[in-house]
Structures are given as C-alpha cells and as structure tokens.
C-alpha cells in the first residue's frame, strides 16, 4: 500500500501574482511522473498538502477544477515558513504534493439544484475550482449565483476570470468590494453580507449556499441567510484548522470526534451546529 505521507514530486510550471499587495500567488504544478498525475483525481472542495523539502508542508485548497487536465493549481497566501518560502520559488523548481485530501462540496446533492456561492477574500480558491467545474457541467445545475467580495478591487483573486464569467452570463456574478475610489468600478460596493441580502436567490429546498470566507464574513452572512429562510442543511461551509498529517491521524484538527482534514473540511451548517468542540 502507498505510504500516505509520501508527496508526489511536481514542477512549478507557472506562477501568477494575483493581488496588488503581492501576498497571493497562484502556482500551477505539473507532475513529474505520469502515473501520479493519473492517480491525483480530486473533486472541487478538496485540499492537498504542499510539500517543500527542507521547509515542511502546508494544507491548501485546490484551486483548479478536476475538469482542468494535466496540472493542478493552488493559490497561496504568504503567511508562514512554507508559504513564505514558496513566494521566493521560481518556475521550474521541484517540490511535492500530497493528496487529494478531505471531502468535497456535495456535488451529487447539488446536481439539479440552484447554487449560490458566497466567498470572501483569499478563501475563494476552492470556490474557483467549483465554478469552473460547474461551468464545465453547466446543464447539470439550475441557477448559479456567485457573490464574491474583497476589501478593494486590487485584492480580488482571478480578476480576468471573474470578468469573463460576468461577461459570459451563464452564471449570475455579484462581485463586490468593501470600498473603492476607482471611478470606473462597475460592480457592487458593500460587504458580502449586504450584497447577499440583495442578490442571493430566494430560499427553497432546491437552493444551496456554499459559504467560504474569513470568520467575520461568515459570522455576518449567517443571519442574512437565516432571514432569507435558508435551511441549515442547505448551507455548506468549508473549514480551516492547523493540520499536519492531513489524514486524520496526527490529532490536532479535531472538532469533537471529527477531523477537519479527513471528515471535512466541508460540513453542512446543520452538522456543525451539532458538533461539540472548538469551531
């Protein structure tokens, strides 16, 4: 049996600086071994451990969709030892990936349903994977809304793609920023909860919200969704915790008897409500 701690070697194929503050870079990796590429079969919402030999590992959501073949993408915020070092790495450098890990957004449940994606800041990466996946399977879903906000325009991820999705029109895009002095800004201005209140589709049994963002956004979006009548079974969250093994063994990312790395990171709000532990 494969050693679950052994990363697959990858080469950095492309690095894109996403935001003007240069804190976020998207890394495109290609596998050194063809069999590893074939083995890495993920679903949108999963994560992987990025492994930098000599520095360590970091769990990061997979930003590319399973429908994008031949590579995997991760958007990495410059934060600690591993991500800080990654921001100094160059195209062609060799590192490793261990995964895919964790569960994913419940695509089988979401088929044939309306989906509203609510995201904020740099937690948008697995949401990008989800949007690309849904667009590649557009006829499997009913209405798709995307509410995505950041503090200012220069901090939005994937700006070219956002504009293209907006222009294409087969999903309803609601891009927003907390504030801007750009007179040419043609999208929304306002916090994500406010825009959610204005733009989210009405609640019904066939409408699901996927919410992923910073704690403050989640905290203030929740009552808005409650007011709109969203059932807690129809609200899907993706969680973060400090992780090491990524496979439910090393013991640190638990909420009660559930490990965010293995049993999550995706939980419905209803499940979370019933879990004991530090959320």
């Amino acid at each position: 049996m494969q050693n679950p701690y052994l990363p697959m070697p990858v080469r950095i194929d492309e690095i894109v600086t996403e935001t003007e503050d240069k804190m976020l870079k998207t890394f495109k990796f290609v596998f050194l071994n063809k069999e590893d590429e074939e083995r890495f079969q993920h679903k949108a919402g999963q994560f992987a451990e990025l492994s930098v030999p000599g520095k360590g590992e970091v769990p990061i959501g997979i930003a590319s969709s399973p429908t994008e073949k031949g590579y995997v993408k991760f958007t990495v915020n410059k934060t600690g030892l591993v991500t800080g070092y990654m921001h100094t790495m160059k195209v062609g450098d060799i590192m490793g990936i261990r995964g895919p890990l964790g569960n994913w957004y419940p695509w089988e449940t979401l088929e044939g349903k309306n989906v509203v994606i609510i995201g904020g800041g740099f937690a948008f990466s697995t949401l990008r994977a989800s949007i690309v996946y849904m667009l590649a399977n557009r006829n499997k879903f009913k209405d798709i809304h995307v509410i995505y906000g950041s503090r200012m325009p220069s901090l939005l991820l994937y700006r070219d793609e956002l504009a293209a999705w907006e222009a294409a029109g087969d999903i309803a895009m609601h891009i927003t920023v907390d504030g801007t002095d750009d007179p040419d800004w043609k999208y929304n201005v306002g916090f994500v909860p406010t825009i959610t209140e204005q733009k989210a589709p009405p609640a019904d049994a066939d409408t699901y919200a996927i919410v992923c963002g910073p704690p403050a956004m989640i905290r203030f979006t929740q009552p808005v969704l409650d007011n709109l009548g969203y059932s807690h079974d129809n609200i899907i969250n993706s969680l973060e915790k400090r992780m090491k093994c990524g496979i439910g063994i090393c013991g640190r990312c638990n909420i009660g008897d559930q490990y965010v790395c293995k049993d999550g990171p995706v939980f419905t709000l209803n499940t979370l409500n019933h879990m004991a532990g530090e959320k």
Partner: protein
Amino acid sequence: MKVIQIDTNQWTEGLAKLEGSYRMFGPAETEGKYPEFKELEKGDVPNLNVSNTHLSAKSVVYPQSEVMFEYTLDEAKEDHHQLREIEKDYSPRAVFGIRPCDAAANLIIQRNFDSKEYRDPYWVDAFESCVFIGHACENPGATCFCTSVGFGPFNEDGLDLLLVESDNGGFLAKVITDKGAVLAKSAGWETETDAAALEPLKEAAEAKIRSKVNTDQLAKQDAKDLFDAPIWEDIGFACLNCGTCTYSCPTCWCFDIQDEVKDKSGIRMRNWDSCMYPLFTLEGSGHNPRPEKHHRIRQRFMHKLKYYVDKYQAGVQCVGCGRCVRLCPVNIDIRTVCEKMNSYKPA
C-alpha cells in the same frame, strides 16, 4: 492455551537463544534516573524489577522521534527535492516486560494508525514486527485503575505471552498467541505446567487494585453538554501545560511533522506532540481555536473519555496505568475528572 514453567536458568538461556532471531526490547537502565523501554544491548537482560516504567512502552512501536523520509537539496543530483522512503528494520522484535496496560494501549492506538481509510506504515509495520511478552502485575501500584476501564493486572489483550513471577524466582508463562508459542519454542521454554495455578494469582492481584472509576455514563452523555460544562476552568486551573501526562501516556498518539536540513541533506521526521501546548493548534493567521489552558485540558480529557468513546464504541482511550496521576506536578487526576464527566448533569 498452555502455561509453561520457566526456571531461572532456562530464563537466562532462553534470552540468549532469542538474541539470534529477535531484536530484544525491555525495561533497562537509562542515562536518566529511571529504567525505560529500549532496545537491549547484546548480553543485556530486561530488567523486570520495575513496577512500571515512567514512560510507557509505546515507544517500542512509536518512537518519540522517527525519520520518515530523506532527500537532497543538491540540484546536481538527479532526484533533488524529491522525498525518498528510507530502509527501516522491521525484523522480529521481542518486547519483554510490557505491562498488560501498555499492551492493551497498543490496541487502542492501532485504531488510529490502522483504519480502513489509511494505514500508517511506520506504526503498523513496527507493531506487526513485535512479539509482546507481558509481565503480569502481582503488585499493582497505588494509582493503577486498569480494572475500572476494562483491563486488569493479568489482562491478555495485545499480548503474545504473559509472564507471571513464580515462587522459585522463575516464571509461569501463559501462551496467548501463535507468535508467542513460536517465541517460547525458540527460547526452549517448553515445560508445560498446570494452568489452574494462575487463576488465584490473578484474583489476588485484581483484589489489590483499590482505585475505582465509573465510566458507564460517558457514552450516554451529550458531547456538547460535556464540552460546555462549567467544570473545565476548575480542572485546568492548576495545569502548567507541561505535557507530562501526554508524553507518559501509553494511549496518546498525537505527533508533529518537521523538516531538518544539514548542508544539502534533509530529512522529514515526526515527533510526539501534545495537545497541552498552544502551538499544537495555532494557525498561520494567529487564530488559535484552543488559546487557553482550560481549552487544552478539556481537549485532552474529552478526547480520551468522550470523543474516542463516541468514535469507536470500544470504551475509553485510557488503560488505567495511572502514570498521568502519578507524574502530574500539580495533582490533576484523570480519575476525578472522569467521575465529573460521568456523573455530569446539565443544568
């Protein structure tokens, strides 16, 4: 299964014979003050005059630090920056003198390291290489409470052979598994004796355990009620977060993974970690889901006495060895905490 009589000469001769076919482990003198489990030098015999080692025997299978991979950062080498698995010695190990509590603890830890989803190769391969030769506790310690958590001083779970000291200085050995039978045969221990001799010794030993803890309500308690119970600040008040309880515990399994580099050569290793430390859960953003010590002590006790109970339906994650009770510098006692959790009634 059969019981074998081993006299003192046969014991010494048998150990010498086994050295040829097993790596030998057992309690032995260390540089520190206390005997601990370690691999024995050739000619050394396990020290079985130890009531129980300070650190548990889990380190035989699960060392405190263990190298997982190696790699080179030298770009002149073809496989630079690619982790390589390393050769490990999983030849048969004979583990002498493990107490029944520590042996049973391995089966608890096994649930974590060997699940249907993931197999931790380091732990499982090491575990499977072991023959466990237990040492029954005819004189259990004052903090022992194994009989309260489903085990006992003569418990056989996780053992291949069980040694009971006999009057003439030798042992009675109960053969529990085929692995144990093979080891006894290779040692030349083959004199069968009356198995009935063990039962009164077992009963006498069990009667010496005075400590009693109730765990019968833990499974029925609501995890959220216990989590929110107003008991944790009191329990954690004196805690120093020193981690002694977790390091000495035979059923604590948490670990950290770290890289170390010297010149261009690197290793990735894992080290025992502890939920008592704030860094255990500190996130890159600065957020810590368990910032206060009472959060961390709650995690430790909830894990052992509730989360594990709910997850596996196989009792508590505690074998009653009493080490954490004996070694805690501020007298935090898992028996008291367990009673509080077991009898808790939400307001």
